[in-house]
C-alpha cells in the first residue's frame, strides 16, 4: 500500500494538521509501511463475522431532565488561551 504525497496532504487537511514538506515525505513512507503491515488482516475471511465496536453491551443512559450543579464559569474559563469577559475568544470566522 503506497500512500502518495497527495493522499498525505488530503488526510492532513482532514485532520487539521499542517505538515512541512519533509514531514509529508516521512509520514507518507511510515504510513505506507504500517498500511502494508495491516494488510495481513485480509488473509482472513470475515464476511460472516459481526464487528466488535465495544466489548460491553452498551445502551443509552438516560436521566431525569433536572437541574444539577455544573462547573463554575470562572473555573472553566481559566484555561482559555484567549478570553474576553465570559467568552472564549477566537479569530474571525465570517468576513
Amino acid at each position, binding site marked *: 500500500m503506497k500512500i502518495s504525497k497527495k493522499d498525505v496532504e488530503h488526510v492532513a487537511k482532514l*485532520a487539521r494538521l499542517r*505538515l512541512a514538506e519533509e514531514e509529508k515525505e516521512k509520514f507518507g513512507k511510515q504510513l505506507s509501511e*504500517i498500511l502494508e503491515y*495491516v494488510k495481513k*488482516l485480509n488473509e482472513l475471511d470475515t464476511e460472516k463475522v459481526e464487528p*466488535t465496536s465495544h*466489548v460491553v453491551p452498551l445502551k443509552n443512559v438516560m436521566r431525569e431532565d433536572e437541574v444539577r450543579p455544573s462547573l463554575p464559569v470562572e473555573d*472553566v474559563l481559566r*484555561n482559555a488561551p484567549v478570553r474576553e469577559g465570559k467568552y472564549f475568544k477566537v479569530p474571525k470566522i465570517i468576513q
Partner: protein
Amino acid sequence: MNLNELTGHEINKLLARKEVSAIEVTEAVLKRIGKMDDRINAYVTVRSEEALREAEEIDKKIQRGEMGSPLMGIPIAIKDNICTRGVKTTCSSKILHNFQPPYDATVVAKLRKAGVIFIGKTNMDEFAMGSSTENSAFGSTHNPWNLNAVPGGSSGGSAAAVAAGETIFALGSDTGGSIRQPAGFCGVTGMKPTYGLVSRYGLVAFASSLDQIGPITRDIRDTAILMNLICGHDPKDSTSLNVPVPDYTQALVNDIKGLKIGIPKEYFGEGIELEVREAIEKAIEALKKLGANVKETSLPHTEYGVAIYYLIATAEASSNLARYDGVRYGYRTKSERRKAKGEMVQMYEDTRREGFGDEVKRRIMLGTYGLSAGYYDAYYLKAQKVRTLVREDFDKAFKDFHCLLTPTSSTPPFRIGEKIDDPLKMYLSDIFTISANLAGLPAISIPCGFTKGGLPIGLQLMAKPLNEEMLLRVAYTFEQNTDHHLRKPVLDADKKIATDDH
C-alpha cells in the same frame, strides 16, 4: 528502614500503630524524588508543599483516632492523563502544557476521599501513545534498573517511580499494554482491570473502547487494596459496568492446587528472546510444583492483534484528539500566518502542528485515513470484525482454563533510542498485551525473573471478564513462593550516582 521502599499495606500498619506519621512517609518519598528524579525523570509535576500539607492534615486525623481507609496517609503518583483538580494535567504534551483541570477524575475523587497523599503527576508517552515513554514533550523517563534502558510505556513514569522508591504506588492507564508492559520492564506489578470496571471519567481519552485505568504497585496485596477503592459503577461514565465490586483482598489465597492454567503457544514463537522464554518456563515449573494444572492451548488470531489495534486505536484517537484546537484550553499558536486568510482554520492547523509531537500526528493521520471515505470498510470495519475473532479465541480458551499465562513482552527493556525511528517495530513490542484490551479482559503483569544483565522480566496472566480475583489468587500464590518482587534497583541507580559524583 527506608519508608519510601515499603508497600502501602506495610505503611498502613505503621500509621495505625502511630509508629510513623504520614509526614515522615511523605518526606521520605519527596527526599527520594529529590535525589533520583533528575536521572529517572518519572515526574512531570511534584507537589512537595501541597503533599506535606495534606500529610499534616491526615496526621491530625490519625491522632484523633480517625483512621479510616487502608490507603489513608499513603503517597500515590498519578499518570499525567488523569485529571486532578487545580493540578496540571499535561498528557506529556505541549498542547496541554498548562492545562489545570477544573474537576477531578472519578478515581482521583475516590482517592482524595480516602485520604491518599498526591505526590505528583507522572511522565508518559504523549497522550499515552507509545511503548517507551520516549514520546514525551518533557523528555524520556529512564529505567531505574538501567538508566540507558526505556521504562516501557506509556505509563513509564508511574512504573519507574514505583520501582525507584519515588512513590509507594501509582495509577496508570492501559490501552494496549500501557500499564503491564512498563510494570514488566520496571520489575513491579501492574493490573489492567476488565473494561468498564473502573470509571474513565476524567481520564483523557485516547481510544475509548480500549482505555482502562489501573494500579501499579510493589506487591499483589497493594494491587487488591487499590482495586477495592477505584473499581465500581460511575454514572458519569456511560461505559461503566453496574456490577458489585468484591473485596479483592479476599482473593489473596496462597493456593492454586488444581487450577487450570493455559499457555497459548502463539506467544512462544520466533520473536521471543531466550532469556524471556527461560524465565517464563521457570515460572511455569514453579506454578506446577504449587499444584497448578498447566497445559498448552491456542489463541489462533494472536498474530493479528497489532494490526487490529493500530487501526481501531488510531481511528478512535483521531476523533478524540479533534478537541485540541486552541480554543477552550491548552496551547494556542502565536503564528500570524492566520492573519492572511480564513483565520480560524489557520489557527487550528498551526496550533495542532506546533502542539502535537510526531507520534501523535502519525496516529491522527493513520486514524483519519482509516475512517475516511472509501477506506472505512477496508480498514476500520475489517479490524472490528477481526476483533470479534480475537474475542472468540478467548471465549473458547476460558472454557478449558481458569487463566492464561504468557510473557508480558517478548523482550527485556530495550535501549533508549533503539526503536524510536521505526514506528512499526515499536508497535510490534506490544504484541502480547494488546489482545486483552481488544477483548476487554482483566490482565496483570508480575515480576518473574531477571536477565543476566539485571533487567526485569514480566509474566502476564489473563482471565475472563470480571475475574480479577482469579488473577490476584494466582499472582499472590506465585509471589508468596518467589522473591522477584523483593529485588530493588536502588543499588544500580545509587551506584551510578556515587560513581558520577567522584
